[in-house]
């Protein structure tokens, strides 16, 4: 059974009185011991989905089930104990760590949450956690500013590990890091997923890294999940034109001088999404049906799915019986 399930999630913000649908009917399942990548351009709703998953924003519809229990949004004060096993790591470890407190005391917060450790035992455990993320136990006595970006991201991960999590949601954990630190943290994430049997949700706009370390991938466009599947298969043969465009835009570093393909246009304003398939104004395969109906996520077998009429098992010309407009 999946450790985390997101079912038909909607996240809606109000902007000057107008409802902005940041996430529309998104579903996702996370397994322990695996890394699931969530990719898409900025503004596609991936961070909103992540924030809803950990309870930082209240979903407008749909549900999030974590370890068999429905998740409730965060309240001021106490968070239900079992939900502490769902952790989040943010993009900028400089703003997510308290600059005035030692690393050790920040990790100890988490240890106290899971309860019942004496001070001395906490200290030992904090040291162990730091070693687990590839740092020295002595780092516990120091402050965040004494570390590089990559080290701070390790510390943020150690702090998340302190509560013995089952799932960690990572929002762009690698994007502020240099190449060598990026590779180190990427390797660390793979190791943690395998050794601690953690389910990791990796949100990233760096498709090359996701391709390398994620087992499964979901591709988001303008609030919708448009394709999902095993990472390797999705990359080898994208079934949604948007995924195809994303893959073609990644520059290769082989020195061949090949210019990556640009995707024309921009992610539209989620406050007024295009009719029908949200991708149709930018799609090079667009045909009559696309502007009029919103394609459902077609199940393509082998854990693959794509929301494109080209993948309609009944043929591309078929008119849909019902549109998915307004489906939650």
């Amino acid at each position, binding site marked *: 059974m999946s450790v985390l399930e997101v079912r038909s999630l909607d996240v809606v913000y109000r902007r000057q009185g107008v409802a902005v649908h940041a996430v529309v009917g998104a579903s996702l399942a996370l397994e322990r011991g695996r890394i699931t990548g969530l990719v898409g*351009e*900025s503004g596609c709703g991936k961070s909103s989905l992540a924030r809803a998953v950990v309870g930082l924003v209240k979903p407008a519809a749909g549900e999030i089930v974590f370890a068999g229990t429905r998740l409730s949004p965060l309240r001021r004060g106490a968070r239900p104990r079992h939900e502490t096993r769902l952790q989040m790591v943010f993009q900028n470890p400089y703003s997510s760590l308290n600059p005035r407190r030692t690393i050790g005391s920040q990790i100890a917060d988490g240890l106290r949450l899971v309860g019942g450790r004496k001070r001395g035992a906490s200290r030992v455990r904090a040291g162990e956690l730091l070693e687990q993320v590839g740092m020295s136990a002595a780092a516990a006595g120091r402050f965040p500013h004494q570390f*590089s970006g*990559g*080290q701070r991201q390790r510390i943020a991960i150690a702090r998340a590990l302190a509560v013995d999590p089952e799932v960690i949601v990572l929002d762009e954990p690698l994007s502020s890091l*240099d*190449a*060598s*630190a*990026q*590779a*180190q943290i*990427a*390797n660390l994430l*793979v190791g943690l997923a395998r050794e601690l049997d953690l389910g990791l949700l990796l949100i990233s*706009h760096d*498709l*090359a*890294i996701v*391709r*390398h*370390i994620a*087992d499964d991938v979901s591709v988001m466009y303008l609030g919708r999940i448009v394709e999902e599947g095993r990472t*390797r298969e999705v*990359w080898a043969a994208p079934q949604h034109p948007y995924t195809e*465009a*994303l893959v073609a*835009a*990644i*520059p*290769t*570093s*082989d*020195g*061949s*001088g*090949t*210019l*990556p*393909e*640009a*995707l024309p246009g*921009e*992610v539209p304003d989620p406050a007024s999404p295009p009719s029908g398939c949200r991708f149709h104004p930018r799609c090079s395969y667009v045909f009559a049906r696309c502007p009029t109906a919103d394609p459902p996520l077609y199940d393509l077998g082998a854990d693959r799915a794509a929301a494109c009429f080209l993948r309609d098992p009944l043929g591309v010309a078929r008119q849909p019986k019902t549109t998915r407009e307004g489906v939650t």
Partner: protein
Amino acid sequence: MSLLAVEQLRVQIRTENGEITIVDGVDYAVEEGQVFGVAGESGSGKTISVLALLQLLPRGASTSGRAIYNGRDLLRLSGRALRRIRGRELAMVFQDPLTSLHPMMTIGRQLSEHVRVHEGASKRAALARAAELLAEVRIPDPERALHAFPHQFSGGMRQRVAIAGALATRPKLLIADEPTTALDVTVQAGILRLLDRLRRENRLSVILITHDLGVMSSIADHVSVFYAGRIVESGPTRDLLSAPRHPYTRALLDALPHPEAEGRTQLLAIPGMPPSPRRRPSGCAFHPRCAYATDESRTDVPPLVPVSDGRLLACHVDPFAVAP
């Protein structure tokens, strides 16, 4: 003759604990119509070395060496002569275009002011030229864009506007510092194609600073790899990226996820961290992280010497030398 020839450029900054050397004797040349890539991790001195060319360094920094542009040494220019070149013949775009665009002025006013100061054109002619510039960088509906403010554009469009601003003075050399780092890959591809077109059609030379070797591979003609304030390897992009000779260049490439790597393998991370300029290792600065280092690497700074056609290398060991 090269458009720009930099010789023995050195930048030092005075701090409470004495002088530290940020850029330590760098030589390179940029040709007309060439995209010259400067690669390296943060703290390697790549940005400082180009800010020095424009005399844009903070107080307390001292620069030595020469940077010959059009027969004149940029480092010795001052007053009007400097203003005539900087921001005109040599223009610059940064990672975050919001830092170079005025938030409360319309795009049209910012661009046309630039044109008027430079070309002495009338208000109307300057606005027309501003619209032309926006069209040149492929901003849809340039006439309307003239009346818009920077915040009304997406990151990619703002970077296009910033490039339009840089082009307003018809520069010969554009310095682009991580111009696509903050952008999505789909948008990045558009900016790279734009730079490539400007290079081909306008014979614009570009110094492209980026840590992203994929970006480098797409449009740079030549790449110099910086490490701890020095160039460790330099050469034509294709050769350098397909057959890196310096252990650091190779390590940077190995740390990247490769499409060819089937299945999940560990990325080859470089052990340790780039050194701080305050504590630069002796000899070859890369030696503490290098699997090939010898005693000589620990004591003597390797000189940057030609090793093959257009290729320069600073390594005592040269472990990836091609057999003759």
